[in-house]
């Protein structure tokens, strides 16, 4: 059902855990729908120096979080903001149709974490 990429990121998740020095944290989803994703960012001079994730959810949710953190690590805040769920799914060599919503959570969690950082820095939040 899942691609080798998905299974690899599920079995060996990258950047999993908490980031104690995080200056932007975003959590999306809820336990009712079955997936919760939490992204920790450590941003210095508008660059994502470090990133970590915690996920409650299915294989696709865990793999999407892992892949998304890999894709934004070392990138600027702007670049990270524009990471789409499509790009995450593509990097995972595709997701089953009913699992696309899990990759959307990854995009949303990154947006929430960036906005948390902007709020903490007294900067205006971003919309789309």
């Amino acid at each position, binding site marked *: 059902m899942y691609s080798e990429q998905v299974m690899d990121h599920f079995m060996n*998740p990258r950047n999993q855990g908490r980031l104690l020095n995080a200056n932007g944290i975003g959590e999306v989803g809820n336990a009712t729908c079955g*997936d919760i994703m939490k992204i920790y960012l450590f941003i210095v001079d508008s660059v994502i120096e470090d990133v970590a994730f*915690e*996920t409650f959810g*299915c294989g696709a949710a865990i793999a999407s979080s892992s892949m998304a953190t890999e894709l934004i690590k070392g990138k600027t805040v702007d670049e990270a903001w524009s990471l789409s769920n499509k790009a995450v799914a593509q990097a995972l060599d595709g997701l089953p149709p*009913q699992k696309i919503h*899990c990759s959307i959570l990854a995009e949303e969690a990154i947006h929430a974490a960036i906005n948390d950082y902007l709020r903490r820095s007294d900067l205006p939040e971003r919309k789309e």
Partner: protein
Amino acid sequence: MSEKKCIYMDNAATTKTHPDVVSAMLPYMTEYFGNPSSLYDFGQTSKKAVERARQQVAQAIGCGPEEVYFTAGGSESNNWAIKGVAFANQKKGKHIITSSIEHHAVIHPCEWLVSQGFEVTFLPVDEYGIISPESVAGAIREDTILVSIMFANNEIGTIEPIPEIGAICKEKGVYFHTDAVQAVGHVPINVDEMHIDLLSLSAHKFHGPKGVGCLYVRSNVKIERLIHGGGQERKRRAGTEHVPGIVGLGAAIDRSVSLMYESNMQIQKLRDRLIEGLLTIPHSRLNGHPTNRLSNNVNIMFEFIEGESILLLLNQYGIAASTGSACTSASLEPSHVLVACGVPHDRVHGSLRLTLGEETTEEDVSYVIEILPGIVKRLRDMSPLTPDELRSKK
């Protein structure tokens, strides 16, 4: 890793067709391919085989062979029982009673009947998934034509008080149907003693082939046809008989009913050991009834983690199981059964069902008890919901 194990603990989903059942079926796919409706001898060989299977089913559930109708499985039997009774008796009334934990093959026909102008009461269950006979009695009205309550639940294994519910229906003069798909071959059944008027069963749940089952219909029950066409099954269910499947069903039901007692003793011991072993994991709980449950069913909920990821990791160790998590269901809805039992949504996602079988060994159980705590810990370390005291020290 060495050679990959294969530990099948999903016997509620389906069972392995027993080799003896396969050998009973084979000749009817090769030599004896005749149509049971044909007059010549070798059509009659097929007909005899079908009638022998009918006899085997009758003996297993304590009915007459003329009350057994072969179908394409549990889903068809449930659809036929519910729609067939509804349409044949709508002059008397349009009210049906069922429960909120039925299989979708009962719930969806009932919901469809609502769209056709019928009224359906979905009875609640207690925290163990038990439907109280009193609630059935209280729900029966003047215009009630059918009560449909499952014999045993497929997810949590809870066995319902069928004889008591049957007695109430008999007293009130309402037909009583039971979806016994998970019970046949695992729980002793007698349709007369239990006052059952209609009963669904499916061969692949007791080591028979897939795609064949039957509906028992007590001789006085008024029921419409579901499948119109030829005159098979005494003009009540059209279609050339699935002879090899029917022969397999007969052989399988015969075999499992005669082995039931021994097999239950053995499986239940393993089940209890597995439950005990898994409940040592902190923040875990048994779903379903502690004692009124199928001898093969283990359903445990682990807090803070999600079921599909448990299944994927178990699969890495060669263990096949199932979950009530929304993420694995096509509808993305969490298990309606666990929700009806009052399990909070977030915990429903963390439920794991392991259903044992004849081939399950002590070693299999030990292996699962050994592997699962590590899987739970690994996923809890990953989850934002896990409290600090349950996390690994870094």
